[in-house]
């Protein structure tokens, strides 16, 4: 009888439930924004702008999602991104090829990921401490490279700051000209990353292993999963994605600065959480994370456009919304657990 009931109403698992909530809230919030603050939010450019500005955050959050699914945490991502931006800018300004800089970016990211992964999985050190040290090191190296902000040469920047324009999604300005919607190359890179990670997590053995070691390390070990190597892989991927995100951020802003990507790690963690990833591991979804980033950005956009432009309002409302989300998740999950116990 119990079996029957399960067949009739297949319940969503925790990941899907949390993701569904996020997507619903994002949709409701965006519709509210359209109704209350007419105009701006109706244009396709608004969404594209959100993507353009946050392509690097999306990439970083995806890496963090993998680490969190594996039961760890990586708070060095923002600092590594900033270091990559700075070193790529310096490399290109010294006469390096902008395309070779991609290799540099990937190299730095992989190096950080490999060191973190080795220390955490093979030497059994707490991930928070290792990645905190990584964050300190990357931030320190950024200022050692240059305390002054470094700007990319105009021509090079124009060369890599390509964007895809579309008249169809554009809007008609008041004087009748059509302003095409533009989407930067970084968004395409981010989309590719998201799709690859989605496939990895859903259909690859390695990806399923991430969930296994995050959910219960002991059982994973008994199932014959190489826990250490799998955990190493989570940090390696996160480092690699930080490198990519650094290059994307450089394509977007074209300047290296010690304060680049400040606070990005916390934004990335918040996005992953809002998207339904649990810090305890084993639960998470990369699509949810993308919606987490979009939700967080929408909150900020709404605050700015609704005229609360005092600098403190933005972070106070962001904090309030975060509080709302976290409470909602907790209440929903708590109710489910009670139901499970009762049934």
């Amino acid at each position, binding site marked *: 009888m119990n079996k029957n009931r399960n067949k009739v109403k297949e319940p969503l698992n925790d990941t899907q439930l949390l993701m569904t909530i996020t997507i619903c809230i994002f949709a409701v919030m965006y519709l509210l924004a359209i109704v209350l603050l007419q105009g701006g939010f109706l244009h396709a450019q608004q969404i594209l702008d959100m993507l353009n500005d946050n392509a690097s955050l999306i990439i970083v959050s995806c890496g963090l999602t993998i680490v969190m699914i594996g039961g760890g945490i990586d708070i060095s991502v923002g600092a590594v991104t900033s270091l990559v931006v700075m070193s790529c800018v310096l490399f290109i300004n010294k006469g390096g090829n902008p395309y070779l800089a991609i290799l540099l970016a990937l190299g730095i990211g992989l190096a950080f990921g490999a060191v973190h992964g080795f220390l955490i999985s093979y030497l059994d050190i707490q991930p928070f401490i290792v990645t905190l040290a990584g964050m300190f090191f990357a931030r320190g190296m950024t200022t050692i490279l240059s*305390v002054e902000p470094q700007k990319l040469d105009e021509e090079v920047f124009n060369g890599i700051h390509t964007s895809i324009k579309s008249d169809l999604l554009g809007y008609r300005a008041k004087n009748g000209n059509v302003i095409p919607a533009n989407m930067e190359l970084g968004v395409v890179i981010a989309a590719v990353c998201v799709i690859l990670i989605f496939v990895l997590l859903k259909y690859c053995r390695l990806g399923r292993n991430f969930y296994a070691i995050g959910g219960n390390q002991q059982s994973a070990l008994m199932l014959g999963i190489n826990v250490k190597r799998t955990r190493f892989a989570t940090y390696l991927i996160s480092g690699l994605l930080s490198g990519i995100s650094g290059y994307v951020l450089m394509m977007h802003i074209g300047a290296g600065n010690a304060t680049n990507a400040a606070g990005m790690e916390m934004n990335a963690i918040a996005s992953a959480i809002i998207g339904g990833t649990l810090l305890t591991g084993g639960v998470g979804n990369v699509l949810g994370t993308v919606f987490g980033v979009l939700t967080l950005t929408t909150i900020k956009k709404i605050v700015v456009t609704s005229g609360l432009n005092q600098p403190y309002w933005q972070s106070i409302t962001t904090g309030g919304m975060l509080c709302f989300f976290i409470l909602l998740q907790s209440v929903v999950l708590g109710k489910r657990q009670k139901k499970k116990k009762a049934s």
Partner: protein
Amino acid sequence: MKDGSKKFLKNGLGQLTIPLIAVALLVIFNLIRDPSFFSISITHNNVGNAVLSGNLISIINGASELAILAIGMTLVTAATKGQDISVGAAAAIAGSVFVKVLKSGSEISVGMVLLAFLCACLVAMIFGAFNGTLVAVFNIQPMIATLILYTCGRSIAYWINGGATPTVNSPILNAIGSFAPGIPVPTPVIIVIAVTILFKLLFHFTSLEILTQSVGINQSAARLNGINTTFIKLLSFILLGVCVSVAGCIGVSRLGLINHETLLLDVEMDAILAVAIGGNSLGGGKFKISGSIIGAYVIQMLTITLYAMKVSSTDVKAYKAIVIVLLVVIGSPVVKERFRKIFKKGKSGTKGVEAA
């Protein structure tokens, strides 16, 4: 007696081994680099007091806020298996309230300072209770729950200040922030000692220590044994709130002004680091307050050593990271095990260092 020494050989100093080794290494390094590094001299400050000065004093003095926060952080870590990342922001709020109350009176007297401190303490405890409720009642992971206050705390402080950085000047605040007349030891150091003694007394006369540990080790077992786990978790956050307010008030008194952006900036990371260097597991459970306090002094000693080596303040972080990684690698269970095997085989210790 023999048993005791055997146990000592087997376990070393327990969890205090790593922080003490770190202190010893730093001291030896500094003595080799500059034998006069730890010299202490008596100078007269501009008020005319005879005060102690020297690198050692500035290390002990500078780590005061961190040490106090590390005490509270240890409790939270032990009880909730997570960390509070909002302490810097909460300290900014507490400092703002402190200044706001001081400014509201016509003149600053001892009673006024006490009242202001109590208000700051109350506010910090309320924010601690807010974090604690999220963690204990709603079962949210501490880092996420405190992310809320981390995001908006400094903005709330900004709003309390009315968007300015008000200054307060008073001999009483100077006495709290630097030296009290007639006492050659910096007052923050005395406050750290007082807070430590208070916590030790609290652990001595109540069973808080063992309750906290049992909640951290196995929450459901603790609950089944009749421990109110929700209350213990909440209490740890409220006690951290008290520590935060003390640290915030010291920070404000030191400078004589409240700057919501820079007061105790990034202190949350350092406090968590102090807990970890002190040999406490960040996964909760057993804890030693003394370890965390030594950890705080290790961090400050490292920073001052780097400053003395003419490393610029923005670059300090990179070198600090290298030392931290070295420390945790030495302290990691895998490396320890390897060390032990090497010692058992009776091979020379140098090989062990290479292996590490």
